[in-house]
């Protein structure tokens, strides 16, 4: 089933976006409703991240400092095991997260209490909730980004919640790759782009901002939670006129655009199924497996995307896919150079900042 709607209706639940200071700040006012939108499946609207909540709580400064000390002790107490396992908590990173949690939940103004003269602090969550949130972070290994409800990605702040993949720093580079192509040729700026498996909408919004006013981005995802969260993020950046979110599997919701796309980007699930049980707790226990599991060798979706790219891209169109690394990237390049021979040009592997062959890019002949 494919349903097609613009996600402005969820914004009704979004609280006013207060005190968000950032050079590229998103919309401060919820965008206008469009009455034409069909009714979404998802009943619960996207959650409001901590930093966008109204500071309706207050606590004495001494109590807030007590919470900070407790949280700091808890962070420092995690075993700083010399076993450099990917899965262990690291107190240095936790202390940095605690600083960010503080930034997101505590407003800067300290007011003097009328009685007793003790200073009080305005909070976006009650102190009890802050205790609970930090406990969840450390004891349950709940990802920090779900705890605060957002992730800073490129120059944006994206809302995330359980059910949606937290965008990774590596993926930021896909937007740079698109920017590079668009800068070289204005033709890319005016056409239709697609971001498949958009999750939080990260890539779609990044690309939308690169294209500026002229182009269009269609973002698809099969997960209704992702569709809702992406729609909310698109609205926060006031790009609902330019980015359309469609629910459905990969190319299915794009039928009318066959042979018309000027650009196709995707970070599909690419982890081999056998690796899923051994994932870092934050990832394996909390992020949706639908967003991670790429089948036996992790390439199920990637190969599907390659085939689709040959059908969907117009001549000269650009594609960029993220992969699990060197091995998968080589498999994709080989496939394109053999089974899909004479369909693409300039197919190549691009490394991420850690030197891993993370992306495959190319053009439709």
């Amino acid at each position: 089933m494919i349903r097609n709607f613009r996600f402005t209706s969820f914004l009704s639940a979004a609280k006013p976006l207060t005190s968000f200071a950032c050079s590229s700040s998103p919309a401060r006012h919820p965008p206008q409703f469009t009455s034409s939108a069909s009714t979404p499946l998802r009943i619960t609207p996207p959650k409001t991240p901590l930093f966008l909540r109204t500071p309706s709580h207050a606590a004495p400064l001494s109590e807030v400092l007590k919470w900070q000390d407790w949280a700091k002790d808890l962070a420092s107490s995690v075993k700083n095991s010399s076993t450099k396992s990917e899965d262990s908590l690291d107190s240095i990173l936790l202390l940095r997260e605690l600083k960010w949690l503080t930034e997101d939940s505590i407003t800067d103004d300290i007011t003097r209490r009328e009685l007793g003269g003790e200073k009080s602090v305005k909070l976006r969550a009650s102190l009890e909730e802050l205790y609970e949130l930090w406990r969840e972070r450390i004891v349950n290994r709940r990802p920090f980004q779900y705890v605060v409800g957002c992730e800073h990605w490129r120059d944006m702040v994206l809302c995330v919640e359980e059910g949606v993949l937290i965008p990774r720093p590596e993926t930021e580079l896909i937007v740079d790759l698109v920017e590079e192509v668009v800068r070289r040729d204005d033709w890319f700026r005016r056409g239709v782009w697609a971001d498949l498996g958009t999750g939080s909408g990260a890539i779609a919004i990044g690309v939308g901002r690169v294209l500026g006013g002229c182009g269009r981005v269609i973002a698809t995802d099969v997960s209704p939670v992702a569709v809702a969260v992406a729609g909310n993020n698109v609205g926060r950046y006031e790009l609902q006129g330019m980015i359309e979110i469609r629910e459905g599997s990969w190319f299915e919701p794009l039928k009318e655009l066959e042979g018309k796309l000027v650009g196709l980007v995707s970070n599909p699930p690419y982890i081999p199924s056998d690796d899923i049980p051994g994932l870092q707790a934050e990832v394996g226990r909390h992020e949706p497996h639908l967003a991670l599991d790429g089948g036996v060798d992790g390439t199920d979706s990637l190969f599907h995307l390659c085939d689709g790219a040959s059908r969907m891209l117009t001549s000269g169109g650009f594609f960029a896919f993220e992969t699990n690394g060197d091995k998968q990237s080589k498999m994709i390049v080989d496939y394109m150079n053999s089974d899909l021979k004479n369909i693409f040009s300039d197919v190549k592997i691009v490394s991420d900042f850690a030197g891993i062959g993370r992306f495959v890019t190319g053009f439709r002949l």
Partner: protein
Amino acid sequence: MAVAALFHARFPLIARRTSPSSVSYYCPRTLEFSHRLQSIICFSSSDGDDIVVSEGPNYVKYSDEDLMKQCKFETFRVSGPGGQHRNKRDSAVRLKHLPTGIVAQAVEDRSQHKNRASALNRLRTLLAIKVRNKVDIEAYSPPPELLQILPPKSTIRTSSSGSQIGPNNPKFVPGMQALLDVISASDGSIADSAKLLGLSTGALSRLILSHDGLRMAVNSMRAAKGMKPLK
């Protein structure tokens, strides 16, 4: 007082321990920095920081993109495949400017993109502080970027110099570099430099003291010549 500030005070610098993984890196276009420095003479100033004397291009004036092309950009990485496998907020970055070897890092921001921008800004300041371009004191004519950071009472300012650019403005950096070049060519003498810039010694000292990096650079230059630091 801001709680966040209070928090910073209570949490001393959170430093990284992991070392950068130096493999390859992404570069938007082909690397092409064949600019050869005609002469790079490195000497150690008193505090051990290397100063580079350059007769080559003035890197501080490069665009972000061009400067980035001369750099090796690395992330700090723990072992493992990364990408979807990992959720570690280690978006710390390290930028090494290959022609000079100057390294800038940033860890404090929440996105890698912003850390990269911070590191690049930091690199510009370091280049301004550490790379000395030769100037001919006899026939000195101050460049516009220097005029812009001088206080209005400077007699060499013209109406086209615009209003004074302060130390928090990114445009202060190229002016600061030109100022350091003058002071270096005057062998660290504030009085001589002030004369060239149409300022009183006091006014120039105040300008130097308005920026920490500038003050430290001038003082290490003076220390190398056995002169007293500005305070």
